[in-house]
């Protein structure tokens, strides 16, 4: 078997050196009744070629957004990832390293994470960022738990523009921790004022920008309202590329930023793995969950990096830790960081502009179709359409014609009938002018 170096002869010699007859001797502490005599009921081992055949067959049963015009978003965005990113993250020195507990032989990972933390802090306009969370949704729930620890309050207000998965994950956590989670109704019109739900008992208000339905909002009045009541403003970002042209949450007064980093460097992967971003104001540093990399010097006085402030973490503090997270999204964070390094300021801003331009073009063309309304006055690369037919059926029909036209809002909140006509449509740089025209034509046909 190709992953096992021991030969039968090795095994015999090793057993002899240990002084036992058979490997069964090592399992003598296992209750007799639980020792399986035969292999379990699963297929026997396979060659690389045979496994590949099965995977190729499973992959062929799917319709890949690589092969058709695709306008899907709703918290997961298809972008072009430069070839260098995937090459570099597959280098064994990154791919097969563990968490950098031995800094002398982990400076590569550590410096990369220090650079990642800096990049995240810069684009969000915050002071510090951690070395990643699982994904955007769990970053959001961790940000909420962090806020409740900071001001020792239990009420949490979630804007109706928050991604429904983020809302649901936060609600699940909140239920087990005895928090009072107040979730506003889905704000598809972009008209809500969640500040009115914030009172003197509120730990934080969670607002997403751009919102789930694509609307942009000025966070400043919300930050002021929160701070006036002693509450924190948690800003969620599910499309980090927007930060190339939209004012950063930090500059608009957010106290904590929770985000999803998939857009940069990472494939869609059917939703996972991705990478959660978490950035905070300096004064809340000691309450941040997860790993942090810090700069220091070695015994020869040379600059180097280590994991630091670990007294916040589970391996030191156990039940008093700021979170139970251990394994995070290291390699996805590296992909994010490499992509952002390749882009640089100029590329990042230009790519954001390109996305916005494509989305504006698409929105204007779709708005010209009979019965189609673009709900948004503002958006980045994603907006909401109101259709004369149920959006789920339209999306299905479009897929049948080889176009992924968008995500029906009802997919995430099926019990809300007011969302039935709504389709979330995203246009990134991957949507060529021909794709855009193809989509417009297909939608005209379906309606």
């Amino acid at each position: 078997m190709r992953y096992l170096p021991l030969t039968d002869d090795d095994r015999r010699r090793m057993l002899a050196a240990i002084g036992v007859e058979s490997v069964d001797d090592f399992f003598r502490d296992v209750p007799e009744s639980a020792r399986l005599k035969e292999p379990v009921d699963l297929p026997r081992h396979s060659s690389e070629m045979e496994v590949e055949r099965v995977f190729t067959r499973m992959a062929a049963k799917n319709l890949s957004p690589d092969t058709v015009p695709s306008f899907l978003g709703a918290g997961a965005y298809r972008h072009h990832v430069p070839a260098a990113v995937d090459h570099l993250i597959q280098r064994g020195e990154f791919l097969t390293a563990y968490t950098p507990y031995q800094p002398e032989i982990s400076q590569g990972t550590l410096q990369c994470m220090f650079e990642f933390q800096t990049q995240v802090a810069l684009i969000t306009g915050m002071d510090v960022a951690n070395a990643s969370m699982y994904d955007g949704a769990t970053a959001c729930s961790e940000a909420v738990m962090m806020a409740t620890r900071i001001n020792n309050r239990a009420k949490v207000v979630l804007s109706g523009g928050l991604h429904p998965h983020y809302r649901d994950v936060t609600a699940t956590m909140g239920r087990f921790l005895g928090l009072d989670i107040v979730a506003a109704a889905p704000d598809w019109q972009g008209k809500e004022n969640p500040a009115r739900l914030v009172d003197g008992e509120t730990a934080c208000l969670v607002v997403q920008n751009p919102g789930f339905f694509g609307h942009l909002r000025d966070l400043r009045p919300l930050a002021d309202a929160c701070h006036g009541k002693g509450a924190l403003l948690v800003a969620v970002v599910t499309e980090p590329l927007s930060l190339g042209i939209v004012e950063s949450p930090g500059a608009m007064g957010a106290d904590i930023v929770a985000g999803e980093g998939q857009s940069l460097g990472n494939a869609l992967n059917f939703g996972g793995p991705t990478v959660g971003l978490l950035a905070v104001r300096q004064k809340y540093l000691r309450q941040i969950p997860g790993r942090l990399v810090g700069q220091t010097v070695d015994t020869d006085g040379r600059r180097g990096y280590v994991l630091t402030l670990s007294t916040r973490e589970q391996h030191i503090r156990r039940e008093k830790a700021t979170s139970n997270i251990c394994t995070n999204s290291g390699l996805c964070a590296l992909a994010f960081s490499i992509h952002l390094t390749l882009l640089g300021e100029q590329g990042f801003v230009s790519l954001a502009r390109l996305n916005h331009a494509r989305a504006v073009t698409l929105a204007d063309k779709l708005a010209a179709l009979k019965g189609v309304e673009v709900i948004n006055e503002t958006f980045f690369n994603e907006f909401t359409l109101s259709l004369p037919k149920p959006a789920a059926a339209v999306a299905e029909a479009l897929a049948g014609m080889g176009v992924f036209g968008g995500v029906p809002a009802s997919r995430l909140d099926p019990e809300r009938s007011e969302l039935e006509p709504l389709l979330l449509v995203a246009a990134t740089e991957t949507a060529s002018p021909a794709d855009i025209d193809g989509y417009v034509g297909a939608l005209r046909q379906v309606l």
Partner: protein
Amino acid sequence: MAAPETTFTGNRGLQLEEPLIFDQGRPGRSGVDLPAAAAAAGDRLGGLERQGAIGLPGLSEPQTVRHYLRLGQKNYGIDSGFFPLGSCTMKHNPRQGEKLARLSGLASLHPLQPQSTVQGALELIDSCAHWLKVLTGMPAIVMSPAAGAQGELVGLMAIRSALEARGDARRRVLVPESAHGTNPASARACGYAVESVAANGRGRIDMDVLKEKLGSDVAAIMLTNPNTCGLFETDIIDIAQAVHDAGAFFYCDGANFNAIVGRVRPGDLGIDCMHLNLHKTFSTPHGGGGPGSGPVALAESLAPFAPLPYVAHGADGFLLVEHEGQGGGKPLGRVKGFHGQFGMFARALAYMMSMGSDGLRQVAEDAVLNANYLLAGLKDSLSPPFEGPCMHEVLFDDRFLAGTGVTTLDFAKAMIDEGFHPMTIYFPLVVHGAMLMEPTETESKETLDQFIDALKGLAERARKGDVAYFQGAPRLTPRRRLDETLAARQPVLRWRPAGDKTVE
């Protein structure tokens, strides 16, 4: 040892110094060319355009590639050499998994495209779940948790939901002293109070202490088996019985499943709930800290509370159940965005299919054989605190260093100069100066022999009193020991431009 020779550049041959990207950027430089955008009719930013520059450095593609390649060379991975990091199962990561997970029909799938267009992906999740159910001997599995710790949390949430459904809210979770830190932290995150249970002199749970602590307000016990001392809990079936008699649930931390995969099914031991780390037993890469994947196997009693979403078999194909009411049961809610770590399922399934039922059984046997071979080779030079045999990892304490002035940390650092990644140190907490070694089944006898010889040599050197050698180690690495106290006392967690006076 002589001070490092100095060079004009600071580089030393292949050991290349590499500045931060922020020290290399120039305005106007980029590593990406974009298509020209046709002018759109005005912007829709509503006056919220970013004011001011971000401050990201600009690097070309060649500079970027060189930067990360050089940084990679300062890392030690399993691809570099022996990595016996106990509890972490640093086994070989097959490259086939990387290739297959990147097939366009898998990697490029959007999580919310119509279900009719992802039947192959749902089949993949379902197959992965099937293999894991058969291997654990448990009837249900939750695929969505992002890592082991989240699996723990989800398992405990299911337990709490089941207890509350029977009107029996309980407050406490029992966690052995030897448990991983995520266990108590997860219990706390699920709203429980944590109570520690001591080990006995044989490195196992003390049944008498356990029975004393079990009461009507104990919701669950979280036990790692084989435990973090590398030992199988001999009384496991009695423990399960006692836990169930007290009306509590039996959570098993499955981080050490590599020791028993294919030979023992946790379902046969009375376990109600167990997470698996696909990034351990099932060979998905650790990636310098993640991502992982932590599916949780559930007994019949907990299955109805499994969180959303999950894959079901529908009338015409696979069905992704995303909302309450679309399937049966009383789901405890959602714990993660989208549908779990799909890319990791692909890698784990490719691994399981490659090994097969026969190969996975061989994995456990070789992993345990390798660990016992280390124990046999080192027991006279190092000090094992407990009687063997061990399972897939072997624990030593620091008694063999007593009186030498050399600590477990010093010893580990000297191993780095020998070209090994050190074992896990100072964990578990139940022995002094712990050294937990997990060789895994993907190491050859030759590697183990070299390791044993090197460690015997180091132990001898420590006994001879060469403390300075150990305290000065490592010497041959890109950096020598780093000042962790300074890092924590004056945290510098990001680069700042020269002249930026912000204090952290």
